[in-house]
């Protein structure tokens, strides 16, 4: 009897952990994009350079900080997922909203500030860079918009659910 009662209590936990769902998604999204950037563009395609002579000093610092942070974000984001799951509080819509938001925000920062202003490296060398930059940054913006949309929609779902409860 007690166990059944507990599960019922827990299944409502997602609203109480809404922010943890959102942040877990944001952190994992950021870390995931940084990881893809490293494996895909640095290691597999060899488009990105480890170091570009035109990098400004603050670019090295920004790159170092984000690189360090992305490891923590990936591992920490996943441990947060584990924590939400054991509390029966994992909220997929909210989490994916956060993930797209984090991923898009980091990609946009990388594509505009880090690539263009701090010049840590370009997406690819010896090509016309404009189409690459456009695809990079527009896809980042799309991810941000979808992320925000999902978060708003998740909130609306929750309000709807609460509404039914209060009417009942």
């Amino acid at each position: 009897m007690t166990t059944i009662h507990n599960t019922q209590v827990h299944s409502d936990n997602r609203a109480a952990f809404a922010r943890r769902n959102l942040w877990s998604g944001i952190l994992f999204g950021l870390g995931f994009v940084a990881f893809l950037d490293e494996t895909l563009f640095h290691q597999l395609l060899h488009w990105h350079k480890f170091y570009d002579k035109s990098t400004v000093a603050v670019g090295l610092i920004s790159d170092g900080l984000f690189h360090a942070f992305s490891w923590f974000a990936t591992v920490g984001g996943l441990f947060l997922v584990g924590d939400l799951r054991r509390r029966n509080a994992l909220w997929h819509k909210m989490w994916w909203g956060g993930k797209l938001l984090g991923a898009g925000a980091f990609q946009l920062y990388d594509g505009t500030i880090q690539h263009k202003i701090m010049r840590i490296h370009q997406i690819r060398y010896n090509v016309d860079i404009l189409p690459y930059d456009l695809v990079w940054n527009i896809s980042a913006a799309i991810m941000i918009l979808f992320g925000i949309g999902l978060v708003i929609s998740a909130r609306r779902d929750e309000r709807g659910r609460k509404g039914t409860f209060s009417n009942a």
Partner: protein
Amino acid sequence: MHDVHFLLTDLLFGVPAMIAVGLYIVAVVITNRRGRLRKWPWLRTVSFVAGVLFASIALVGPLSRQSYTDFTAHMVGHLLLGMLSPLLIALAAPMTLILRTLNVHLARKLSLLLQSSFIGFFTHPVTASVLNIGGLWVLYTTNLYSAMHSSLLLHIIIHIHVFLAGYLFTISLVYIDPVFHRFSYTYRTVVFILALAGHGILSKFIYAYPPAGVIEEQSRIGAMLMYYGGDAVDLLLIFILFKHWYQSVRPRKLVSTGI
């Protein structure tokens, strides 16, 4: 460097390493015989022996000789001595083993020493990070790196420093042994991110500006090794740190009341 110097460093680092492994194993055997204590996990013994072995690879034998002329070999040694070995030794919980081997009187004295503000200062995450990462900045961005190769004394001091600073850094961030001066997960995470960033930035700095006496090709491979090798070891550290957080915030089971 002369062969006499190599013989000297081999003995100076090799003998203590063997003594350390010997003492650890003796302590495990002695305390395992005491019925009231639980058996010492064998994985910790493996971890300790492996940790000492990795440090020895950097300090004794062919790799340490090659490090004099080859920056890439030096960087492999640095990763083993300053990062992997300290982590493995920290995971072996040597202080816990010492405390359970000593008699109560001595163990109390040691425990008082560990609580002192002196130890607290050196195991503070910020102090340990500055000693560790700051020390590396000094080593690779000044003439210290080339001076290390002409002075035996500097060679010995720097290698001891790299290991000790790496060990302090590890135990200030992940708590395996008893820790009296504790810091929150958030605090340690923030310091850890800054330290890790300092390590990554230094790697790229070395790539762009090789230390005096290092040819560009070697400095580039060495710098990338430092960057990605550092990432690999740090991933382990981050995993352990967050695993401890995950265990510490586990939801307590509801006690069933009806029965």
